[in-house]
C-alpha cells in the first residue's frame, strides 16, 4: 500500500470468513482507510492482490469488477449521502439502476430498508435536514439496498455520541446476524472493537505492517505487541502516578 513512493503498509495478508464481523484497527494515520479503499475497488494496491470469492478483484476487467462491487455495501465515514436527493431517492437509486424491479416494489424495499435502520417515515427528508446519527443510519440503509454479501464500514461511530454509536453497533450486529452477511469495519473506536468484533487485525504505523491478529477480546488480554496492548487497554483507568496530576 503506497502513495507514489511513500509506502504506508507492506506484507498485509489476511483472510475474512463469510459471516464474521472483521475489524481493521490501528492508530490514526496507519493506513486503515487506504486499505479499505483497496478492498472496495476505489484504489489499486501498489502490489499484491485482493480476492473476493476466489477472484482477484484488481485483475478483473473493469466491467466485471463493477459487477462484483455490487455485492458490497459501503458505509462511508461521513455517510456520503447524495445531498440533492431525499433519503428515499438515495436508497432507490441503486435499486433503479441495478435491478429490474417495478417502481412499487422499489418503494416497498425503500420503506423496508428505512424501517430496518429505524427511519420509517423519513423517506422524504433531505440529508441536511436530519441529524448526523440519522444520516449514518440512512447511509447504512443505502448500503443495504442491494442486499450485499459484504458490508464495509469506514469509522462508523466517528462523529456520533456514545449512545448513538452504541445503537449503530447493535444495528450492525443485528443486521449482520439476520442477513448473514460479512462485515468489515475499519475503526479505532475501542468500544465498538471490543463489543462487536469477531476477528481483527491491527495495523501499525511504525512498523508498517500487521502486528497482531485475532479476536479483539483475546488480543486485549494476550497481545504481546506493546502498541496493541496500550491501544486495547485504553479504556482502563490510569494508574495512580499518571492520574495524580488531575484535579
Amino acid at each position, binding site marked *: 500500500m503506497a502513495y507514489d513512493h511513500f509506502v504506508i503498509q507492506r506484507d498485509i495478508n489476511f483472510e475474512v470468513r463469510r459471516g464474521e464481523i472483521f475489524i481493521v484497527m490501528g492508530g490514526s494515520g496507519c493506513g486503515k482507510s487506504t486499505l479499505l479503499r483497496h478492498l472496495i475497488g476505489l484504489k489499486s494496491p501498489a502490489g499484491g492482490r485482493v480476492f473476493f470469492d476466489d477472484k482477484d478483484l484488481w485483475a478483473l476487467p473493469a466491467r466485471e469488477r463493477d459487477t462484483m462491487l455490487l455485492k458490497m455495501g459501503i458505509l462511508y465515514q461521513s455517510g456520503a449521502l447524495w*445531498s440533492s436527493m431525499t433519503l428515499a431517492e438515495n436508497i432507490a437509486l441503486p435499486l433503479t439502476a441495478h435491478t429490474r424491479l417495478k417502481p412499487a416494489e422499489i418503494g416497498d424495499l425503500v420503506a423496508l430498508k428505512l*424501517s430496518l435502520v429505524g427511519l420509517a417515515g423519513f423517506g422524504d427528508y433531505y440529508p441536511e435536514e436530519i441529524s448526523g446519527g440519522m444520516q449514518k443510519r440512512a447511509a447504512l440503509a443505502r448500503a443495504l439496498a442491494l442486499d450485499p454479501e459484504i458490508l464495509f464500514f469506514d469509522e462508523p461511530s466517528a462523529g456520533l455520541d456514545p449512545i448513538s454509536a452504541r445503537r449503530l453497533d447493535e444495528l450492525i450486529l443485528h*443486521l449482520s446476524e439476520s442477513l448473514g452477511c460479512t462485515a468489515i469495519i475499519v475503526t479505532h473506536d475501542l468500544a465498538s472493537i471490543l463489543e462487536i468484533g469477531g476477528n481483527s487485525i491491527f495495523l501499525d504505523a511504525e512498523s508498517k505492517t500487521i502486528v497482531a491478529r485475532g479476536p479483539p477480546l483475546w488480543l486485549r488480554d494476550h497481545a504481546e505487541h506493546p502498541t496493541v496492548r496500550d491501544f486495547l487497554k485504553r479504556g482502563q483507568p490510569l494508574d495512580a502516578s499518571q492520574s495524580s496530576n488531575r484535579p
Partner: protein
Amino acid sequence: MSAPSLEIVQESPTGITLRLAGDWRSGGATPGVEQVVNWLETAPLCRRIGFDCRHLTRWDSLFLTFLTRLIRHCADRGITIHDASLPEGVRGLLALASAVPERQDAMRELQSGGLLLTWGRHTLRFIRDFAGLAEFTGETCLAFGRLLLGRARMRAGDLFALIQECGPNALPIISLIALLVGMILAFVGAVQLKLFGAQIYIADLVGLGMAREMGAMMTAILMAGRTGAAFAAELGSMTVNGEIDALRTTGFSPMEFLVLPRILALFLTIPFLCLYADVVGIFGGALVASGLFDISFSEYLVQIQNRLRPIDFEVGIFKCAVFGILVAVAGCMRGLQCQRNATAVGLATTSAVVTGIVFIVISDAVMTLIITALNVFKR
C-alpha cells in the same frame, strides 16, 4: 435455482398455512401478496396465518417486503401471524424493522400546486430574495464603513491575490472578446455606411460604441461569468464545508474577511480592464476598416482622435466600476446564501451569473438615463 412458489393450505376454517418454496430473490417471478389477500377476501372466518418454509431455498429483501405487506394487511383485518416457522434471519429482520414504529409526524405533506399557490410562493420567494439583497447591501456598507475607519479585519495577502486573479489573469479572455466585439461593430456598421460612401465614420462608430458602452458592458458581463461565478462557487463551497461558520465562531466577520477583499479587488481592477477593452476593441475596428474598407490605419486613428474625448472613456470606466461592484456583490451574496449541499453550490453559481447580468443591465439603463439627463456628452 428453483422457481419461487406460494401455496395456500387451509388447515381449519379459521387458519391457513402459506407454503413458501424455492428461490425468493429479486430477479425471479416471485408471487405477489395480492394472491393471499384475494384468497382472504373469500375466507372471512380466517383469523390465523402460519408458514411452512421447509422448501424455501433462498430469500432476500423482496421476500421481506412480501411479508411486511402481508403483516400490515393482516393487522388491519385482525388476523394473527404466526412467524415461528419463518427462517431465523427473516424473523430477526422483521423484528428490527418493526422495532421503531413509523413516525407519522415526520411524514411530509404533499405540496399541491394551484396557480394561486404557485404565484404566492413565487411572490414570497421574490420578497425573501429582495430582503436578502437589502440585508447583504446593508452589511456590505457597514463593512466598508469599518474598512474606512481602519477596523475591518481582512488580510492584505488575500486582497493582492484576488487583484491578480481579477485583473491580470482576466486579460487573455478580455483581449479576445474585446477584439472580436470591435471587429463586429466595425463590420456591421461599415456595411451600412459604405452605401453612403461614409466608411470613415467606422472609427466614430467603433470608438464611441466601445468607449461609452460596449467596452464597459462586455467587460462586466465577462467578469460576471468568470469572476462572479468563481466568488459564488468558492464561498458556496466554504458554506457547505462549514468554513464560514468556523470564521464566525473564531470572531471573523465573513463580510469583512471574505466579501470586502473581493468587492475591492474587482472594483480596483475592472476600470483598467475596461480601458484595456476599449483600446483593444478600437484596434479591432481598425483591423476591419483597413483590411476590408480601404481606410488606412492613420486615417482611422486621426478620426478617432478628432471624435473621441476623455469624457467618453470616463463615462464608460465609471459605469464599469459600478458594474464591478455589483458583480462582486452578486457573486458573494449568492455564495453566502448557499444551502448546505452540493447542488446548492451549482445553483448559487448560476444564480450569481444571472443576478450579476441583471444588475448590470438595470444599472446601465439607470446610469444611461441619468447621463443623458445631465447632458454629459454636450460639446
